[in-house]
């Protein structure tokens, strides 16, 4: 059962049961972006407020499995109020955490680039997901939506 406990850590179950930053922001001015996983029906909608290079507020709605919903909740807590540079770095680090497993199978070089879990804080709880390849898309759903939303905001300006 160790793998399963690794997947469903207490932090993950806590964010699933009590999601943070749940709700909506008036859009506009907030930027609204949706993420959708057609295979399992998981959905997340993000509302992003960016002011002076800072992600000043983030709210989200959605439904899906514990991994997709806790990941979006953990993400919102990690990036809210952060300068965009830090947000971008966190997205990159998180995606690296999720793909680390696959790259370890492909090239040794990439496998050497280990993610420094200390920079991830609570997000590190999601590392158990990489042992369940079919669940990685659940964990990355909100993050891909955030990346898309921030890119759309950058393109508007």
């Amino acid at each position: 059962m160790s793998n399963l406990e690794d997947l469903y850590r207490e932090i993950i179950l806590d964010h699933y049961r009590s999601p943070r930053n749940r709700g909506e922001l008036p859009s506009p001015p907030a930027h609204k972006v949706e993420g959708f996983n057609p295979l399992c029906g998981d959905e997340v909608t993000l509302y992003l407020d960016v002011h002076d290079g800072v992600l000043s507020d983030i709210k989200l709605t959605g439904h899906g499995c514990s991994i997709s919903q806790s990941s979006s909740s953990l993400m919102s807590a990690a990036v809210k109020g952060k300068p965009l540079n830090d947000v971008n770095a966190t997205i990159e680090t998180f995606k690296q955490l999720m793909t680390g497993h696959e790259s370890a199978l492909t090239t040794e070089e990439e496998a050497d680039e280990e993610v420094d879990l200390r920079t991830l804080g609570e997000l590190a709880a999601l590392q158990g997901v990489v042992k369940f390849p079919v669940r990685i898309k659940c964990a990355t759903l909100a993050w891909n939506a955030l990346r898309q939303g921030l890119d759309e905001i950058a393109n508007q300006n």
Partner: protein
Amino acid sequence: MSSFNVRRIRADIPLLQREINGRKITYLDSGASSLQPHAVIDAMSRYYELRHANVHRGVYQTANEATEAYEGSRAAVALFLNAPGGADEVVFTKNTTESLNLIAKTWGADHLAQGDVVLVSEMEHHANIVPWFQLREATGVEVRFIPVGDDYRLDLTKLDELLDGVKLLSVTAMSNVLGTKNPIAELAEAAHRVGALIAVDGAQSIVHGVTDVQELDIDFLAFSGHKMLGPTGIGVLWTRESVLDTMGPFMGGGGMIADVRVDGFTPAKGVARFEAGTPPIAESVGLRAAVRYLTGLGMENVADHDHELTVDALTRLESSFDGRVRVIGPSDTKDRGGVISLDVEGVHPHDVAQVLDQFGVCVRPGHHCAKPLMKRFGLAATARASFGPYSTTRDTDVLLEALTSAVSMFG
């Protein structure tokens, strides 16, 4: 039940000997795909080892044997279905999906036009919805839905109104989500009364009971080999000869022609015109072995066994979880097969399936390619357990043990 011994069946199936996460596999995903007995696997191996050649071509010994094997499979399937016209009514396809598409893209395109209605139901698999939507785009036919009632059965109270203008009723014999078995003979009679034909999606029903196309008095039947202990890659479209003769060819290529000239082609007669290219020969051999195996068990016995398992599972699920585990399907076990969709309070189906996997329990989470039905009941997904002829109440024991763990983990 002299010929039906579930312990012997289990011993015939190599995959049931596997261990998953340190536990003997508990395979409860037969609704997605069944497991194969040695008889099927060995028949295919022996075919490749001794007889393989392309069919309908060569004059040498093995080519003749391969052709006889392939055509022999067609005859075996015809017998299994009690097809009135025999092997000449059995078209081999890739799977149920291709069989249903074949109806829409040949018979549908030839016989239906704007103003005609195709009547399906709200509990159909996408494979019996999307081809009709595609036909609607091409020809302007109307696609109408029989609603599903709160009892998870077809609501036939307004059937006469629904049948107005209908040229084809296309409906599943057994829901792959609810386990509901539909009254096919009654629907066939109603369709014929208004001059419509009836097509039946038999993907689930084919391995859950007897299918006699004459007794049901239907016009088309679609099903897959791999859901009835046979291999993947082969499906069947049965249709009466009188209907088949009115259908144009399907895909173009070798084998489906009578003649090809620089100015055009003439399609072959009979089932050949729907089977372009090298067909699934080894798969047909495997399918024939599956038909022989199931016939040996007796489909009445298979149906009785499925019924006993379903009654037992529904009774125990009902009494075990203080209402936290809800069955999405009829509680009345008459006309209901062993496909059991579960909604676990507070636990997403993907998480249910993930926890169950740790117990070696294989179930299917998701919308089961039946999104209109999911929407009807306000669900995004369910976790579905489904029985095969080799399933036992022991499988249900492990399912309940694993569900208990899932419920307490997310409690």
